[in-house]
């Protein structure tokens, strides 16, 4: 896996992920509170530099997805075709996270039959450790 090259703004996301928590940066100004992603130094709504990391429900819906085929970097080519999805969070659908829908938290990227993917499908987050980094994965909700 390409381990994330973490910057100062993004570091808390990965630290919380290591604890099994999906948290998104939010403005901490009293009258604002807007979520923002990707993380950045200040709030585009009220320009406050105060931020906090809010716990998400971990539930979302597939906004879109692709199935990458080679040419790819070797580690990904070995799993291709796999899915890369964009999940909009139920907490705030304007927050959309790239991820992978898998059959089980520790299963490979190509473990889910692509025919089961559809835009709008409900998913929930799970966490797994890959190459020493905890990353979020997504599981299809069974209705």
């Amino acid at each position, binding site marked *: 896996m390409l381990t994330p090259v973490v910057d100062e703004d993004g570091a808390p996301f990965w630290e919380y992920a290591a604890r099994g928590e999906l948290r998104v940066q939010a403005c901490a100004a009293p009258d604002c509170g807007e979520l923002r992603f990707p993380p950045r130094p200040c709030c585009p709504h009220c320009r406050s530099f105060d931020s906090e990391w809010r716990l998400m429900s971990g539930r979302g819906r597939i906004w*879109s*997805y*692709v199935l*990458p085929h080679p040419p790819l*970097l070797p580690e990904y080519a070995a799993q291709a*075709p796999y899915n890369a999805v964009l999940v909009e969070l139920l907490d705030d659908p304007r927050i*959309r996270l*790239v991820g992978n829908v898998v059959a089980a938290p520790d299963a490979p990227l190509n473990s889910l039959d692509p025919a089961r993917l559809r835009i709008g499908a409900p998913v929930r987050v799970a966490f797994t450790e890959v190459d020493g980094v905890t990353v979020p994965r997504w599981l299809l909700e069974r209705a």
Partner: protein
Amino acid sequence: MLKDATAIVGIGQTPFAKQLPETEKALACRAILAALDDAGIDPSEVDAFASYTMEETDEVEVAKAIGAGDVTFFSKVGYGGGGSCATVGHLAAAVATGQASVGVAWRSRKRGSGPRPWKNTAVQLPTPGQWTRPFGLLRPADEIGMLARRYMHEYGATRDHLFNVALACRNRANQNPAAIMYERPLTREMYMTARWISEPLCLFDNCLETDGALACVIVSAERARDCRQKPVYVHSAAQGLPAQHHGMVNYWNDDPLSGPAWTAARHLWKQADFGPADVDVAQIYDAFTPLVPLSLEGYGFCGRGEGGAFTEGGALEIGGRLPLNTGGGGLSEAYVHGFNLINEGVKQLRGTSTAQVPDAATCLVTAGEGVPTSAILLRS
């Protein structure tokens, strides 16, 4: 005022191929000297340069090599293919405001034989890779594929619509001996059975990988009257970086399917004496087929969500409502970060294209949609 104050008076290009033996620097010099020769201007008169930040050959090297005079303006525009038309816009502004008198814009690239940028895992890409690359969203095709699937879902656009784009470009390349895809026709069956690159995008939804270089020369409208070629006027120019834009990964925007084209277009048309209905021929940036319907909407050729349907009935072919990428575009002529679209626009307005639109007098040229972009309107 920029309007028609400057003109493109020279264009030049090297051969296009999967692999060329010369260096990017040598190719750049060849294209620039060819453009100056086309204009009938001595290289020693060049005093302004513009290119892309991703251009490896910088103006110091180019100026030295071609024997330019003292240079008083130089500019490099970021965001890959989004910078193509801005190079012309910057030089037009510099010449129109008296900062320089002879400007050269260029792009030289060995993308066919050289490394692909997305394979470089050592450098942080312009888009924040920590949110995408660990999940295997690696390449521009994956990022645009994500938007494309959502676009198709939301507006009912189909793979046939994307095929219409690929086909129009290929048909024009089949008429253009300089195009990589000259004499290599494309059929619907070839498209529909092609291998996937990033579903829903197949091989033919992706641009070529090309070695080659192009350049053009910009002078004042007054000077243009004394040049060798018929002047092609820079009527309007714009750049576009919309509010809360995120580059290729604009799906973090509140409105991901409204890209930079919309922002550039608003300014472009505001400065122009004519509108989308008066455009005779369009050169629309086509690194990926879905960029075309998105751009058709952004630049006002149809309503939002109608870009797919716009491509039906041969609309993008010669004789259609909006002949597209008449040299073959990035999909079928050459992918040199969109610079071939600029030169093809000039050819159309000179009346010298290999797929000439009869009496073409106005042309829209756009840069990469999906990144901070730029566009120009040319008129004869």
